[in-house]
């Protein structure tokens, strides 16, 4: 595997291999010197066309923990502002000979284009409303850590599905690992044809009690201006997960950043059922495993992995 563009690039075995490797990397963060030499001398280029705090920093930390060199390229303030096309930017940056390009872009399918225009491997760190595969991997990792397996789980994804790349990647990942997925949200924010992804669609929380996992999505303020929902107040009344709606046997997830008091009530964010902090923590080790998977290669012998040596 050279690229990670979509969750569909992975099969169940590949997901489990990446998650198992991520698990072995947790030990690195607990050391005094938080670094292994696995990717020493490799170049990772972070190409971010959208603002991002946790995804970009966790990719950077992941690459550095594996001793790769990292170049951060943010679109604003660069040649992109002067009208340089994506193709020219990618070809220019390719002259720096990166081994891997991590791209975040507002455009669906742009990582696939980049993969065609460069010899480097490409990781999709979010393309428009399409996919965000490393988020799905870290969510699956977090769930596995908490519940052991996803097999037979009933997972509800609640909120603005239309505008969520996290939802699309997670639907694919959760189902690949044996879970049953239901998406739930306002009818204006569930795209027509969503059932084609294999999930069920609900428009109310009436059957939320059937869920083992409640995965809430961020409700963006600009949705109100387009009349997708009449008001945040109305949205919260219908779809907010609070202490009454969340039962004690359910776990709660959210990709962040949370709108406290909109999609989630404060009491559930701070409850022991919430895995939100664990999701963030998983981001680094899972992205380390993705970088390792793409750069070190599966077949390449890497004894350093099982007994990592401080760099």
């Amino acid at each position, binding site marked *: 595997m050279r690229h990670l563009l979509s969750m569909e690039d992975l099969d169940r075995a590949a997901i489990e291999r990446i998650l198992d490797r991520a698990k072995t990397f947790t030990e690195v963060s607990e050391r005094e010197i938080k670094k292994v030499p696995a990717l020493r001398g490799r170049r990772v280029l972070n190409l971010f066309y959208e603002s991002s705090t946790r995804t970009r920093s966790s990719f950077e930390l992941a690459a550095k923990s594996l001793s790769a060199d990292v170049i951060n390229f943010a679109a604003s303030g660069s040649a992109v502002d002067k009208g340089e*096309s*994506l*193709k020219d930017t990618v070809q220019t940056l390719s002259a720096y000979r990166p081994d891997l390009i991590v791209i975040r*872009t*507002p*455009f*669906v*399918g*742009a990582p*696939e*284009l980049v993969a065609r225009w460069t010899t480097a491997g490409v990781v999709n760190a979010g393309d*428009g*409303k*399409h*996919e965000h595969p490393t988020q799905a991997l870290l969510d699956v990792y977090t769930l596995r850590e908490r519940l052991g397996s996803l097999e037979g789980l009933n997972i509800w994804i609640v909120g603005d599905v239309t505008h*969520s*790349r996290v939802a*699309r990647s997670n639907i694919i990942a959760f189902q690949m690992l044996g879970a049953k997925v239901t998406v739930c949200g306002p009818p204006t924010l569930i*795209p*027509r*044809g*969503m*059932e*084609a*992804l294999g999930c069920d669609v609900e428009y109310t929380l009436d059957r939320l009690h059937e869920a083992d996992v409640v995965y809430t999505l961020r409700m963006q303020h600009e949705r109100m201006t387009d009349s997708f929902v009449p008001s945040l107040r109305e949205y919260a009344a219908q779809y907010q997960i609070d202490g009454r709606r969340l039962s004690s046997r359910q776990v709660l997830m959210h990709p962040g950043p949370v709108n406290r008091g909109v999609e989630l009530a404060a009491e559930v964010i701070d409850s022991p059922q919430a895995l939100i902090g664990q999701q963030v923590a998983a981001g680094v080790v899972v992205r380390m495993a993705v970088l390792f998977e793409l750069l070190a290669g599966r077949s390449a012998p890497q004894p350093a992995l099982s007994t990592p040596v401080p760099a």
Partner: protein
Amino acid sequence: MLDHRETPPADVLIKGAHVLDPRAGIDERLDVRIANGTIAELGPDLESDGEVLDGAGKHLFPGFVDPHVHLRTPGQEHKEDLDTGTRSAAAGGFVAIVAMPNTSPTVDSAPILRSLRESARREARVPVGFMASVTHGLAGETLTEMAELREAGALGFTDDGKPVHRAGILRKALQYQKLSGAIIALHEEDPTLSGKGVMHEGEVSARLGLAGIPSISESTLIARDAAIAGYEGGRIHIQHLSARESVEAIAEAKARGVQITCEASPHHLTLTHDALLERLDTRLKMNPPLRAERDRQALIEGLRSGVIDCIATDHAPHAREEKEQPFEDAPMGTTGLETAFAAVYTELVKPGVLPLELIVHKLSAGAALMGLPTPLIGVGKPADLVLVDLDASWEVGESGYESRSENCCFDGRTLHGKVLTTIAAGGIVYRERRLTAV
């Protein structure tokens, strides 16, 4: 009202081709002798001391007429101009094409139209007719001087690329049609429904996370405009039908006696949004978008039943750098002149979905709708002919395009049916390269 540069009138004998002209009732192996650009003789075993084209094993059809082409001139000659666009038409077997007015500037005044027609008389390889816009600058606000534009040679009026969004403006245009007498062609899309959509709204857009253009954005406006045309007794032509609901809306309007005609494009007849799952290729981005299989089937059935009157390419060239962008940023449109017959033949005729004579008929039926003479194979008729090898297969784009642009949605596909020679308005305007090399 068609313009083109002078081509020497052909003196040529086409020998042994299977001649098929559904309107003339010809469907047999015949020799066709053309003298001074006119069909002089039809029959078996004709002789000539001039040039002879070997038609053995080939088919000869009346030339195709495309009522919907973008030649991008004036103003966007980096995409296409009158020379390259009409070369492309000739290579596709078209003997007349109709250019849309959404150029830069818009063809919305008689001086612009006159100068364009003058250019065509210098540059166009095949006869071109020009539409003028319904409203100034396609803004949908104020009517153009339709009577003067008509006198200056406008074939008809359209704001193609955009709908005439305000019902009141369309109504006035249809009232004014009593004076201009020219067809009004409509791009049907309710922008409050299509919004920022970049592809068909359905399972594929849901999966890709792309904003969708729902079928109802087209069909609801067709229903509205058919009602207005019926009320005013006006005549409208609906461009590039894409959705099943639209076929139904037109069928209902026709049944009520509304003077409404419509066209469908080769890409909507042969491709669906599923193609975007294989590869998010900007050449597959057009407006209206490739829709679902049920829509494609409805279009095919519409051709068969007669609800759909003709095939039109909506040839929409764009430069490479414009299409080499992320899908959402790329402009809408595919080229289509060079692949129209082959695409429809390969996907619909060869598998036995539609008969060859129906396709041949529909590929020139747009002429009459635009008030142009329909090519006909008969003694004394001007030679408007296309010689085709149905057995020849070719990979689209393998030897480039005649068009200045290469944004063809069929690029890389293997198609059957190759245009060998095109004779337009009596002159040979295209010869397949391999044929002339012999």
